[in-house]
Every structure is written in structure tokens, then in C-alpha cells.
């Protein structure tokens, strides 16, 4: 793994504007940044990212079964008891998953370590699957990157295959995001492109415009009944919404399925550590009130520890502590009221003054691609930059 300075494509901003990639700059800072790129060897991508993440997903599936069978663990998930059966039913019915993103700390030397699993509402799909791919093809054509190089990015094709695999042809799928969030909309639209290519009917509705019919089915902004809903909106929030009482009777299939609420949840990290202690891709993790577990594991956390809420987005309410001193504390504390977990601190590598986090994408049950985000801060937050990557020839 290396961070290499490369010439930018001269026309990339015009291209981004033309393609509608409106958030290539965000908050007055570049979000898409191709002044440098991350390079990997093929062995590294396959042996350190791809295969371990496919295995991590299988471990996560096993953990779902374990949690559902254990009431004490279900309590730890912080989800309303009224919805437990709905979650369990989706698992027992084998409702298929579509996608997820593992965030990994990887320094090019040791094994990649799982920071968290964005298994329910991962974003940055457009940047990863499409704009990053275009960057690679352009740079290959311009001979900035050599013949024989490659990129780990089968994301789009894998999504097309996944939709074709789990839905009959011409199934009408609805795609919903909150209105007014272009990053979220871009992910939803990228997903819809893949569904269209797989022969599905794709319809968009703002999440807030979803209605409930007199028969108790969900309807879109045009009153059409929703049979399958891709919702870029977290299950734990959906469960707290007024319409959650209608979930069971709505005869609606969801993407991601309800059981993903157990994996996008950081309470799964201590469960994984209990089930697979010492696994090379896991960091020691404990529930914050598990004082005995934490005391026994003190020798595993000499580099420090990270406190995270079980539900949180973009690094909110995360605190990193080392040698009894707070190294960094996220300013955004809006998730402070949630239960916390404690995870061993695995410092991100520093490359060119920036700290990269690997986002490894899982489609279906297989790792199919990656993207890299980097940040100056220790906690990757919403000002991080998306960086393209390539595999050396």
C-alpha cells in the first residue's frame, strides 16, 4: 500500500459537473481528490482485503443467528422489543442482503482490522462504483497508469448480478432517501441504475412522502403500492418512526432486510469478539459496562481504546483514549445518549499527512470492491476525502 502523487485529469471537474456529481466539493473543501491515489499489490488486495472481508461477512451472518437466539444479546442491540419478531422473521425467511461496507484500518503491513460494518445504509456508492472507475479508465487511457494495472471495483457489475439473482425480471422496486441530501440520493440512484440494468423497474420516492394505504400497505408519492423498498434510512430510525407499527402488515420486502439492523449496530463488535476471540481481522471489543471483560483485556489495549455509541454516523460521539489521555473526541456528540462499546485502538497509518480508511464493499455475501477515504483527523468524519485507488501492474 502506498500513496502516490499523480497528475489530475485536467477535465475532471467539468466531467463531474456534467455527470451531476454535485458534491465533488463539500463544505468548501474538495471531497473527491485525485491529486494522489492509493496503490496496492494484487496479493495485498486479495489476501488482506477481499478474502478477509468475505470471511468477515460470513462471520457476521453467524453472529446474527447467535444474537437472535440469545435474549440478553438482543437487549444489547438497543432495538425496540416490539420489533424483535419482525427482525427474526426476516432472518428465518432468508431475506437476502444486497450490500454493505466494512470500514477497515489497514497500514500495508499487518492484517486489516474491522472498525465497523456499515451494513444497512452505506453511502459513497456513486464515488466508489462509478466515478472512481471512470478515473481509472481515463488514467489508463492517458497512460498515467500502466497496462496491466487494475482496480478492485466490480461493484457495479456485482450489484446488477445480485438484483437479477434475488428478484424475478421486471419486479418493481422502489428506492427512497430523505429529500435534500445529494450524497444519499447519489447512492440511491447508483443502486437504481444497477437495478434497471438487471431488468427491474426502478421508482424513486422521497422517504418522507411514503404513505400508508387503507389496506395498510406503503405507497409512494404517486400513491402506487410499494412491494419492495430500498430505503437509505437506518432501521433503528425507522423503528422509532410513526409508521413502524405498519411494518409487519405492509407486505413489503425491504432492502436491506431488517436483520441488517443487528450488523450495522456497533453492539455486534463485542459479539464478534466473543465468538471469534483473537481473529486477526477483529479488534478486541467489549460493551462499555463489561468491566471484567475490559480489565481482563487490558493487555490487548495498550495502544489505547475507542469509545463508540452503538448507533452513530460519520464518527459522531466517538472518543479515542490512550495512556489515560483523550487523543481525540468527535465534536459532534448527537449520539451520546446511546449505549457505548469499547474497542481496542488501531491507529490509522499516516500517509502524506493523511489517515486513510479502507471501505471494502460486500455485495450479496462476497467482497467485490473498495474505496479509500482519508482525513487529517484521527476520527474519519464528514470532511474526509474520497481517494481513488489502483492495483499495481
Amino acid at each position, binding site marked *: 500500500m502506498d500513496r502516490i502523487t499523480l497528475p489530475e485529469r485536467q477535465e475532471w471537474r467539468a466531467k463531474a459537473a456534467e455527470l451531476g456529481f454535485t458534491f465533488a466539493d463539500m463544505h468548501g473543501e474538495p471531497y473527491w481528490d485525485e491529486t494522489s491515489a492509493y496503490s496496492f499489490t*494484487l496479493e495485498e488486495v486479495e489476501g488482506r482485503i477481499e478474502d478477509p472481508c468475505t470471511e468477515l461477512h460470513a462471520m457476521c451472518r453467524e453472529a446474527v443467528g447467535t444474537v437472535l437466539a440469545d435474549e440478553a444479546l438482543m437487549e444489547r442491540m438497543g432495538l425496540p422489543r416490539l420489533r424483535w419478531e419482525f427482525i427474526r422473521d426476516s432472518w428465518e425467511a432468508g431475506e437476502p442482503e444486497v450490500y454493505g461496507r466494512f470500514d477497515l484500518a489497514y497500514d500495508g503491513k499487518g492484517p486489516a482490522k474491522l472498525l465497523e460494518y456499515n451494513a444497512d445504509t452505506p*453511502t459513497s456508492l456513486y464515488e466508489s462504483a462509478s466515478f472512481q472507475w471512470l478515473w481509472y479508465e481515463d488514467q489508463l487511457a492517458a497512460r498515467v497508469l500502466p497496462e496491466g494495472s487494475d482496480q478492485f471495483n466490480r461493484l457495479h457489475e456485482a450489484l446488477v448480478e445480485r438484483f437479477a439473482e434475488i428478484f424475478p425480471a421486471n419486479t418493481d422496486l422502489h428506492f427512497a432517501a430523505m429529500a435534500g441530501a*445529494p450524497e444519499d*440520493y447519489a447512492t440511491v440512484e447508483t443502486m437504481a441504475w*444497477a437495478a434497471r440494468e438487471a431488468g427491474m423497474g426502478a421508482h424513486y420516492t422521497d422517504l418522507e412522502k*411514503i404513505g400508508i394505504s387503507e389496506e395498510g400497505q406503503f405507497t409512494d408519492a404517486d400513491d402506487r403500492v410499494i412491494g419492495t423498498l430500498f430505503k437509505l*434510512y437506518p432501521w433503528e430510525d425507522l423503528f422509532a418512526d410513526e409508521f413502524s407499527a405498519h411494518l409487519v402488515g405492509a407486505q413489503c420486502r425491504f432492502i436491506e432486510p431488517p436483520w441488517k439492523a443487528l450488523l450495522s449496530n456497533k453492539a455486534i463488535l463485542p459479539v464478534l469478539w466473543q465468538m471469534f476471540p483473537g481473529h486477526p481481522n477483529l479488534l478486541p471489543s467489549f460493551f462499555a459496562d463489561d468491566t471484567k471483560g475490559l480489565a481482563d483485556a487490558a493487555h490487548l489495549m495498550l495502544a489505547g481504546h475507542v469509545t463508540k455509541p452503538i448507533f452513530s454516523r460519520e464518527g459522531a460521539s466517538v472518543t479515542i483514549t490512550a495512556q489515560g489521555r483523550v487523543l481525540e473526541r468527535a465534536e459532534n456528540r448527537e449520539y451520546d445518549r446511546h449505549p457505548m462499546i469499547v474497542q481496542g485502538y488501531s491507529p490509522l497509518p499516516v500517509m502524506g499527512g493523511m489517515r486513510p480508511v479502507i471501505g471494502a464493499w460486500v455485495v450479496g455475501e462476497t467482497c467485490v470492491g473498495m474505496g479509500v477515504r482519508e482525513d487529517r483527523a484521527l476520527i474519519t468524519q464528514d470532511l474526509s476525502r474520497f481517494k481513488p485507488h489502483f492495483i499495481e501492474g
Partner: protein
Amino acid sequence: MKRSRAVSLGILGAAAFGLAACQQEEQTEAAAFPDEQSCVAAAAQGGWFTREDCAATFAEAQAVHAETAPRYESRELCEEEHGAGACGGDAVAGNSGGGSIFMPLLAGYLIGQALGGGRAMAQPVVSKAGGGFATPTGGTQLSRLNSTGKMGSTAFAKGPTTAGQPPMSRAAVASRGGFGGSAASRSVGS
């Protein structure tokens, strides 16, 4: 090869769906009246429309209303949506339709300045249960008539034809807006 052979590059916000979100729409001058006479009275005060515009747009609004106003299978259902006494039998189907179809009465109309000149635009409005008015699709809502102001030009886009269609062939919607209230922030992805 570990990458896709081809990828839809996508024009975000435009093409993947039949319906695009995030569209910037043009604004136009508009006014709302309960009837043609009110429009003519306003035209006499001066402004961007004439009494001829009032007559032409009122006639057009009546025709568009007959063609696109929502149809219901019962008067009760119609009145639940549009208020007591605000509904009548289907004027287009008349007595020949066989079944009974109900639709809201024309409560007024919108007149809009055409973008780039040309004929003034027209759109019927019907009343809503609980007060206020809306275009036949419900896409544009007004608190009162005899008002003027800027309005998105899509308010004048004609809704789907409902005349001759089975009443409420889509699902009858009891309520809306029960999702999205718990989001901690505007962007909820991770």
C-alpha cells in the same frame, strides 16, 4: 480483471428514475381566483394579465378539471379528501357511465405568466378537506384564493388523465409522512 467491464456513469438527479428529485424549477408570476369575474376585476387594476387572459384560462381550467380531477368511487371518500359539499357526480361520465363516480367541484383556478412569453397558463384548483386548495394532482397547495405571487412553473403541468379511468385505481391513501421523523441529521447514510 478485478473491475467492472462497463459502468453506468449516471447523470445524477436526472435519468435513473422516471421521477427526478432535486430539480431546480423555474419560477413564474401566478395568481389564484375563485372565478372568472374575480380575475377580470384584478385585471382591471393593471398587471401582467388581461380580461381576455382571464376568460381563456378559465375555460382551459374547466376543461383540464374535467379531464384530470381525482375520481372517487363514493361521495364519502371524495368528501373525506375534499370537504363536505365539495364533491359532485362525474361530469364527463354523466349518466351514461353506469357506475357512480364522484369528483371534487372546481373551486377556482390558477393563472400563470408563460415563461418566455405566449399565452397565459391555466390550472384548476379544488378544495381540500380541512381547508385550503390544491391542484388536481395535489402537487401544489394554496392557503387561499384571490392571491398572487411567484410559483414554480411545474404547478401548471397537466396531471394524468382520470376521466374515463376507474375511480381511485391507485391505492387510496389514508396518511402520509410517517417515515423520516427520527433521522438525527439531514444525510443519514454512513
